[in-house]
């Protein structure tokens, strides 16, 4: 017994000391990290709904939606955070809807680990800007070939069809799921 303690006391003591150190670090940095994540999401909310001055988070089931107001406290739209699988890993995004939930006002990718240079172009505002103005009551479709896009279609990123389709699928799903529930939150 003495032999075991003699040989292991240092590991035990270091374990306790380091655990204390890490707990201290979590206390110091934890709130800041949570705040960073929140700020990132709220920044995306401001980007997807036009004229938004402030937003209120409303819980829906396990997730939340953001109710967006302009400076005169008039409802200007909704922002729906959503996530789903892309080509490599989860894509997190926010979709904006008009106050009557009939039109998509914008889409912003918050976090993605798609292929650099190809799939990660989904966070280009130029590409995601295609969603603004589309009909939220119908499914958005992705066009792969270089043809004129028709109603409720967006052009896929060249060489990144899977990422483009993943974003569209996540957006379609969250819109279909949340639209009926928005009425209760008005």
């Amino acid at each position, binding site marked *: 017994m003495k032999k075991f303690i003699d040989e292991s006391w*240092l590991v035990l003591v270091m374990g306790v000391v380091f655990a204390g150190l890490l707990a201290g670090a979590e206390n*110091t940095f934890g709130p800041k990290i949570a705040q960073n994540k929140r700020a990132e999401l709220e920044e995306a909310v401001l980007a997807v709904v036009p004229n938004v001055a402030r937003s209120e988070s409303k819980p829906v089931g396990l997730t939340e939606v953001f109710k967006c107001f302009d400076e005169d406290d008039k409802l200007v739209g909704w922002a729906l955070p959503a996530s789903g699988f892309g080509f490599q890993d989860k894509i997190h995004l926010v979709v904006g809807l008009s106050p009557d939930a009939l039109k998509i006002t914008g889409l912003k990718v918050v976090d993605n680990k798609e292929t650099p240079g190809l799939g990660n172009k989904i966070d280009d505002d130029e590409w995601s800007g295609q969603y603004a103005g589309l009909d939220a009551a119908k499914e958005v479709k992705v066009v792969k070939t270089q043809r004129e896009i028709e109603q409720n279609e967006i052009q896929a990123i060249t060489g990144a069809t899977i990422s483009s389709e993943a974003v569209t699928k996540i957006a379609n799903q969250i819109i279909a799921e949340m639209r009926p529930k928005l009425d209760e939150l008005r």
Partner: protein
Amino acid sequence: MADENGNGALQQFKDGVLSDNPVLVQLLGMCPTLAITNSVENALVMGAAASFVVICSNMITSLLRPLIHPHVRILIFTLTIATFVTLADRFLAANMYKVSKQLGAFIPLIIVNCMIICRAEVCAIKSGPLKSFCDACGIGIGFTMALVILGVVREILGNGTLLNYRIMPEAFYGTHEWVIMVLPPGAFLVLGIVIGVSNFIRQDKAGGAA
């Protein structure tokens, strides 16, 4: 070189940067080297985080070395390294959120960077604090330097930027930038060429003596 005086410590520092460079000579820590050198910013932050960890781990190992039983030493190295990696990871997530997101899992993965455990085993467990500190600084700077060299080449060719400032005219690349340089194949190509060049220079210096 193994003597316990100031000269030995200084030599240890120089060796870490040049003749024993962890990336270019010892070929240790290849995983972050290949994975995160697609921009100079990432390379700098990864280099700084790894340097912090190797310095702390070397100091603790060196100071506690009379107490460490040989057969539990690996356990103690790992425990120490894991603690400081977690500290660095949390610190980056709190204060440099964007970069921390780009580096993703590669900051926690510093725990398994064999460059760091190698320094504990080769130097810190049998040397005084001064020499261990110099050794860690040398290795840290050598590692950062190698990452930054790769980062500079890959960011300029792959993105046309340096530290996010555009420095290359768009016309240089034709229709688009050389995306391959930012992707994994670019890492292998650049690393191979850089190691080749560094070997050539070292051989040249050694001259007839070799």
